[in-house]
């Protein structure tokens, strides 16, 4: 190859691009400690820890947090079951309509959220379904399927078919093969997919505004605070919680799917 070193211009552009992606989020942390609650004055006039206590004691934060956790947990479970089933079918055989199925799974996140939201809203109106926790879950599970599916299908692809045949040759039936061979190999990928789905559901707001009615999830609570701010630093404290709730699963998912070498038969 002509040269294996990147030009300084490229290095600067790539570094600046990454800095552009990361620096803004840090400001959220800074503003959680500011003493100024009426504006976003920079630099903050003083630093304080009191907003964490204030946020803890605000009664209007806990119900949305609880609702978000419930929705994310149930949606993730549904998505994990459905996503794994599709991934297993896709890995098992090539069948007619395979491409259409993969497109159908991808569509809910490839099309703008406003379409999914508005579509669900129309459907609830046409069939007269009142808003409830379940209308939120219906939407969330739908766009979470693809996340679990992507993780599972990648692992299926690396999993060598020979191990399943070997299991059958050794006298295991399909269910034993599933329990002893398939699941242990898929486990970490499913866990990773589930964590990403949880993170996605936990802070989803675009679809949720259409399917929640009068209910308030944590992101919807944040959205109303953004439009009509009250104690601004409290919003920052909640934002830090949201960042932590999504950051940790994402990091865990990364480490769970990082070493592909440990999958059985992957060397083939």
């Amino acid at each position, binding site marked *: 190859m002509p040269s294996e070193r990147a030009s300084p211009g490229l290095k600067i552009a790539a570094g600046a691009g990454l800095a552009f992606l990361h620096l803004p989020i840090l400001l959220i942390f800074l503003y959680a400690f500011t003493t100024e609650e009426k504006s976003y004055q920079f630099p903050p006039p003083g630093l304080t820890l009191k907003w964490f206590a204030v946020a803890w004691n605000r009664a209007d934060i806990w119900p949305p947090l609880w609702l978000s956790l419930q929705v994310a947990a149930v949606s993730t479970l549904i998505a994990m079951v459905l996503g794994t089933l599709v991934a297993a079918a896709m890995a098992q055989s090539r069948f007619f309509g395979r491409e259409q199925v993969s497109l159908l799974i991808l569509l809910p996140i490839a099309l*703008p959220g406003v379409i999914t939201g508005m579509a669900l809203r*129309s459907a609830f109106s046409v069939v007269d379904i009142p808003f409830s926790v379940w209308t939120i879950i219906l939407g969330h599970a739908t766009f979470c399927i693809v996340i679990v599916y992507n993780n599972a299908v990648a692992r299926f692809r690396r999993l060598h078919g020979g191990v399943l045949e070997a299991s059958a040759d050794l006298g295991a039936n399909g269910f034993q093969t599933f329990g002893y061979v398939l699941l242990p190999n898929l486990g970490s990928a499913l866990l990773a997919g589930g964590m990403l789905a949880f993170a996605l559901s936990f802070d989803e707001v*675009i679809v949720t505004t259409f399917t929640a009615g009068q209910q308030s999830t944590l992101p919807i609570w944040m959205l109303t605070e953004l439009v009509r701010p009250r104690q601004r630093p409290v919003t920052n404290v909640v934002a830090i919680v949201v960042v932590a709730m999504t950051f940790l699963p994402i990091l865990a998912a990364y480490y769970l799917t990082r070493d592909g070498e440990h999958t059985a038969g992957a060397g083939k």
Partner: protein
Amino acid sequence: MLSDAPAVLPERGPADRLTAVFWRHPRVLLVLLLTPPLLWLGVVYLGSLAALLLQSFYSIDEFSGLVVPEFTLKTYAELFRAQNLDIILRTLTMAVLVTLTSAVIAFPIAYFAARFARGRWKALFYLGVMLPLWSSYLVKVYAWKLILAREGIVTWLAERAGAGPLLGRALDEQWFGGSSLSTSPVGTFIVFVYIWMPYMILPMQAALERVPGSMLEAAADLGASRGQAFRTVILPLALPGIVAGSIFTFSLTLGDYIIPQIIGNSARFIGLAVYQFQGTAGNLPLAAAFAVVPIVIMLVYLAIAKRLGAFDAL
């Protein structure tokens, strides 16, 4: 003693029998696996899209404000009113500008990660792209509200650098500004780029990684400079992947309605129009018709992307 009987294990119960059925008829297993997810997606998702389409062919009674469930094209005709066309055009222009700008910012990151980053650095780049992409959407938008606020860090930096008057004059320009960056169209644009650009990087990087090294060696052997090799070998080969990467950025910008609601001069975009018509205005049919617009635009975009070979690159 050797037996002539084939080595068949005795059946141990229903689990074995089912296994045998699946083995003889693989289609049965396939149908069993696919039925629940397809039922869900078919009913919940496609069903909803059908309801959306249906709703868009209804109209609203101007006097009672109730939805009239009869087939009509009246609602679609409303889309062609000047103020509604304005919304569509503004959204489309914004999506195109955001996609092009994102490509310019994303390309160096993807290029560096694909061609020069190795080992630890490669992992770092991957995380460096994944973390912002996955972190909370609202938190990211909120961060920019802090940054662009009149009393915020941008103003502070501009004043420190002696560019305060320059920023003030720019904000006075009609197309550029508002009372502060966080209420200006430029602010909306910056935040759109920030939020939807990361979706472009990984597909771009994958496309660049697929350009075979041997071709670059051949280009060098034939006397091409680095610039020539880049323009005549790397770029044409990676283009389908770049277009594939742009699909998400373009599509998600097209429908976003939270960003223009929080940052900008409250000029309306398609997503915002959908949200307002279904909410406060109570005009579900017009909201549905507006939601069909991005679907149609995306179909055209996908058709073009397919022509450019983007789908083989995904």
